């Protein structure tokens, strides 16, 4: 394991040399609470080697195939970075006079209109700082809508059993009770069960379409009608919008609120490379509830709140530079966004088809942008789990697929190849997965003990979860 930067620290070393100051020096002696802030002291060369060394131990889309289902680890074009680092975008301040940032406002407006067009919604806010934050925003809007209509008994939010865990969490955060609706044999929402759950207490149904099994729910119209007729609203988790751009629109399916994860569909950086952005789109009847700080057409000033606004969700204008990366991606692709989705679907179906002679596909019909394998049989026969197979992939410069999700599939491996991967990359991954399947039969212990080449070998995840050490103590 690499040392921590604090362990590399050596008294008197420094990576930064400040130029002589032309300002008078100020004494801090008058402050009572003084002490060593204990920052690491390290020379520039050692600092660079430390971080480059860490980056070499990590796996990213820029280093290898990353078919992490539901996370859409598509390649992020460097053009996005070029645009986001333009001075007019990168070197502005949210408090500078409005007349000096008119171009930035226009770019935000342009993105809101583009997202509205792609999703079939009437307005978007760029406020939320991430997908789950967008979900929370959307659910607050739904709560405010029912409250405004004095429809206070609507406390129930229905969520499918295949949903992302953030859905029930966001609903609970917004004050709702969550009820789960089962999936049917085809992997869609069980209509009969939904019918028995929807009533005058239903605030909303949260749905991902295509869902986390990578399947488009063909009953979406019936589902939407059912919820709307009962007076509930329809919430679209836009996590999988990358599969349907230019082909189908949540607004046309009947959804009232949509959140998007710009890092998935629109190629902005993920996770630690963020920050994130989770724009929320609404139909006309919900525009008055949008957060304060949204850049809306009919507001007298930028600081005015829509009439029934849920309030501010974030300071200033959201994560502006992230939204500019997404705008770049949309403008660069234009009508080609449809090809993006079609290639994502093609790649997933190609991999699923190629793997299906060796592996068991949980729902073997034509999929959208991702599909789910079940290793239940392999677990029983060879005592090799989805986790063991995933660990073995780490030795071959391939990031494992999403494991053990959705929970309705046992020993699940959820594969999302993305449109940005070539056929050669897919073929390589297919051949590796088939080879590992053969190893499973010939020498299961090889997989049970993998990986062998990573900086950290098999970790004791049970111990880590039961006795987590979350803090570094300096000796």
């Amino acid at each position, binding site marked *: 394991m690499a040392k921590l930067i604090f362990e590399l620290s050596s008294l008197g070393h420094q990576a930064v040399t400040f130029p002589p100051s032309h300002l008078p020096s100020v004494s801090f002696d008058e402050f009572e609470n003084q002490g060593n802030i204990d920052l690491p002291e390290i020379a520039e060369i050692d600092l660079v080697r430390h971080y480059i060394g860490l980056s070499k131990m990590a796996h990213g889309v820029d280093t290898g195939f990353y078919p992490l289902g539901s996370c859409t680890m598509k390649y992020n074009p460097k053009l996005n970075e070029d645009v986001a680092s333009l001075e007019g975008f990168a070197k502005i301040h949210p408090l500078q006079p409005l007349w000096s940032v008119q171009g930035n406002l226009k770019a935000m407006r342009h993105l809101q209109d583009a997202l509205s067009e792609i999703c079939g919604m009437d307005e978007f806010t760029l406020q939320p700082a991430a997908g789950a934050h967008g979900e929370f925003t959307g659910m607050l809007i739904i709560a405010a809508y029912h409250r405004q209509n004095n429809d206070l008994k609507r406390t129930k939010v229905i969520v499918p059993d295949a949903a992302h*865990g953030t859905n029930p969490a966001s609903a609970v955060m917004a004050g709702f009770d969550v009820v*789960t609706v089962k999936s049917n044999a085809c992997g869609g929402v069980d209509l009969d069960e939904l019918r028995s759950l929807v009533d005058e207490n239903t605030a909303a149904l949260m749905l991902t379409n295509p869902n986390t099994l990578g399947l488009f729910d063909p009953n979406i119209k019936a589902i939407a009608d059912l919820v709307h007729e009962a007076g509930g609203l329809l919430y679209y988790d836009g996590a999988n919008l990358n599969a349907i751009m230019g082909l189908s629109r949540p607004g046309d399916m009947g959804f009232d609120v949509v959140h998007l994860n710009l890092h998935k569909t629109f190629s902005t950086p993920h996770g630690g490379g963020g920050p994130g952005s989770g724009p929320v789109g609404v139909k006309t009847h919900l525009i008055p509830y949008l957060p304060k700080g949204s850049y809306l057409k009919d507001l007298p000033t930028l600081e005015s709140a829509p009439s029934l606004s849920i309030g501010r969700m974030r300071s200033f204008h959201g994560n502006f530079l992230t939204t500019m990366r997404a705008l770049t991606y949309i403008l660069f692709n234009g009508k080609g966004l449809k090809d993006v989705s079609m290639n994502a679907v093609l790649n997933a179906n190609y991999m699923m088809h190629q793997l299906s002679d060796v592996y068991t596909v949980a729902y073997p019909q034509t999929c959208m942008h991702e599909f789910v394998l079940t290793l*239940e049989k392999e677990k029983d026969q060879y005592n090799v789990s989805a986790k063991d197979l995933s660990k073995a992939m780490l030795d071959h410069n391939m990031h494992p697929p999403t*494991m*053990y*999700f959705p*929970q309705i599939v*046992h020993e699940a491996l959820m594969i999302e190849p993305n449109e940005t991967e070539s056929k050669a990359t897919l073929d390589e991954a297919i051949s590796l997965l088939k080879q590992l399947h053969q190893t499973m039969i010939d020498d299961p212990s090889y997989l049970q003990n993998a990986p062998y080449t990573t900086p950290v070998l098999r970790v004791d*995840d*049970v111990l880590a*979860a*039961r006795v987590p050490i979350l803090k570094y103590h300096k000796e």
Partner: protein
Amino acid sequence: MNSVKEGYYYLSTHEWVKQESDTTFLVGISDFAQHALGDIVYVALPEVNDNVKQGERFCDVESVKAVSDVYSPVSGTITEINTSLEDSPELLNQDPYGVWIMKVEGSLDTSGLLDSAAYTLHLENEH
């Protein structure tokens, strides 16, 4: 593996209930459940005096794979929770039919439950 204990009643979602006296019942999860979850690392216990209803969620357990809801096979009021699970959640893996999660004062409606034979059949059909 996947043993079923006689004399217990089960929910199709893999919880069991065992009658302790006329009105008190012990509730836990089945061997299949602990096996499917894998190593359990945390149990978010309910609280004493909470009311539970048959078929409704009363707590969740976290394994290295996922967090899963646990449903109550019995209706009533919680009189005791198994606090040893706070520090030793692995007890549910080690002895699923001996280790209970909560004790409930209430009444048992077996019409919504499976007996050991029916639960065995359920496991065979489902998996």
